[in-house]
């Protein structure tokens, strides 16, 4: 369903991705793990066409993303929902207008109906009676939930999660993990999550892939990753400062 082949991407002089290959099957939940600054977000942005690779191909349901013009790209983006790290809610709009943004832009539904759908999606993520609130009045966890409601409002086939649990307290983080699992079960959604939160990764993943030094160095089930013999993977999942992974800018 999603297939990335040999993705290379540089910013100015910095090479971030050096030939990433990745496949996600329909209905699968793939989690990409990797350190801060390893290019996880850059990788995720390639899947929805926010960034274009310098080299390589991105296929979504056997459509070549890079061959599409703007209208074609927007058409395929309607299959996607994306939850941003800090939720990226439109702060000039009320919560329900945020959730209903896609519906307002791409359907002819009247506002009353859009609001109704928004309220229902908010309920799905566990929020009630906040549809008329401005995003600035919400806590971090609530903002993420609203972001998730916005991502699922158009009933997408694919959900992309950018560090869904980062910056949340452990209880809220677990609640978000549960929501992600629920979304997959209820809506039969294919998802790609990037995170460095191993607890979350083990919980929500069917498959885990580790990004290191611009390439995917290992792919496997949560069990396989947990018991990997690769020293780099082991160091990361165990969260040790000592090991083969070089921490940028830190001398040892």
């Amino acid at each position, binding site marked *: 369903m999603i297939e990335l082949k040999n993705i290379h991407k540089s910013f100015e002089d910095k090479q971030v991705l050096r030939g990433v290959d990745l496949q996600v099957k329909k209905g699968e939940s793939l989690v990409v793990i990797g350190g801060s600054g390893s290019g996880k977000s850059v990788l995720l*942005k390639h899947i*929805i*066409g*926010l960034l274009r690779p310098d080299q390589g191909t991105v296929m979504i349901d056997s459509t070549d993303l890079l061959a599409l013009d*703007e209208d074609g790209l*927007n*058409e395929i*983006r*309607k299959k*996607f*929902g*994306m939850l*941003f*790290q*800090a939720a*990226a*809610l*439109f*702060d000039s709009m009320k919560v329900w207008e945020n959730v209903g*943004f*896609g519906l307002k*832009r*791409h359907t002819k539904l009247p506002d009353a109906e859009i609001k109704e759908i928004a309220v229902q999606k908010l309920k799905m993520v566990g929020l009630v009676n906040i549809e008329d609130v401005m995003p600035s009045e919400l806590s971090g966890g609530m903002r993420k939930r609203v972001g998730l409601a*916005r991502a699922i409002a*158009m009933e997408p086939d694919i959900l*992309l999660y950018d560090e869904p649990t980062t910056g949340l307290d452990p209880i809220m983080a677990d609640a978000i993990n549960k929501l992600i699992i629920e979304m997959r079960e209820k809506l039969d959604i294919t998802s790609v999550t990037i995170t460095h939160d191993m607890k979350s990764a083990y919980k929500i993943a069917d498959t885990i892939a580790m990004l290191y030094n611009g390439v995917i160095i290992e792919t496997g089930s949560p069990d396989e990753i947990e018991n990997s013999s690769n020293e780099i993977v082991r160091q990361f999942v165990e969260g040790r400062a000592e090991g083969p992974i070089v921490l940028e800018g830190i001398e040892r």
Partner: protein
Amino acid sequence: MLIKFIEWIGAAVEGVIIGIGKISILLYNVLRGIFKPPFEIKNTLRQMLEIGVNSLPVVLITAVFTGMVLALQSYTGFKRFGAEGLVGSIVALSMTRELGPVLTALIVTGRAGASMAAELGTMRVTEQIDALETLATNPVKYLIVPRFIAGTIMLPALVVVTDIIGILGGYFVTVVLLNAGSRTYMKATWDFLQAEDIYNGLIKAAFFGAAFTLISCYKGFYTKGGAEGVGRATTGAVVYSSMAILISDYFLSAWLFK
């Protein structure tokens, strides 16, 4: 030392050329976006309200005091050689041809241009612009086109107000405060003022409106680097827009008022 200096000049020239290239591409996308449905009518009206109507108080104050000081200065100056009867012409011509468009553009840049850059810059660094794209919405069309249209239409509209209020301010000082003849002032105003003075001033204003919205939106849209980046974008928007207005003013004037 010398090589450093030459490198510095090279980098500066390169930066300017890259900037002009990027802004030209943005202009092309904006112009294309204007004629491609869906038309962002509600968004455009909201921006017209923001740029035009909400700028009115500060524009009115600028206009009335500019007209007043022009009259005051030219009256005392012209009195030395007995030409105080021409104060009306000086105020009318200066306001419509030059000060109306330029001062209004600078004031609106400081107000609306800065807020545009800050708003778009914040949207960029908080990933709201990326979010728009993931929701299958072209951010240039959704965010920049309405501001560009609103700036190009509303600045000339504000200048019409500035021209009238400036001339009235001049009238007030000359006739009420300095006790010159009312009829002389109005006659001097009408005798020398031509329609082309007014509409050429408005053409300049439309150009300034397009320029400051494009530059401010460009600065905001391509903001990098968090809160500091937003601050830099806002400063850059005001500085570059003001420079563009003042420099293009000379060339537009030379071209329009032959």
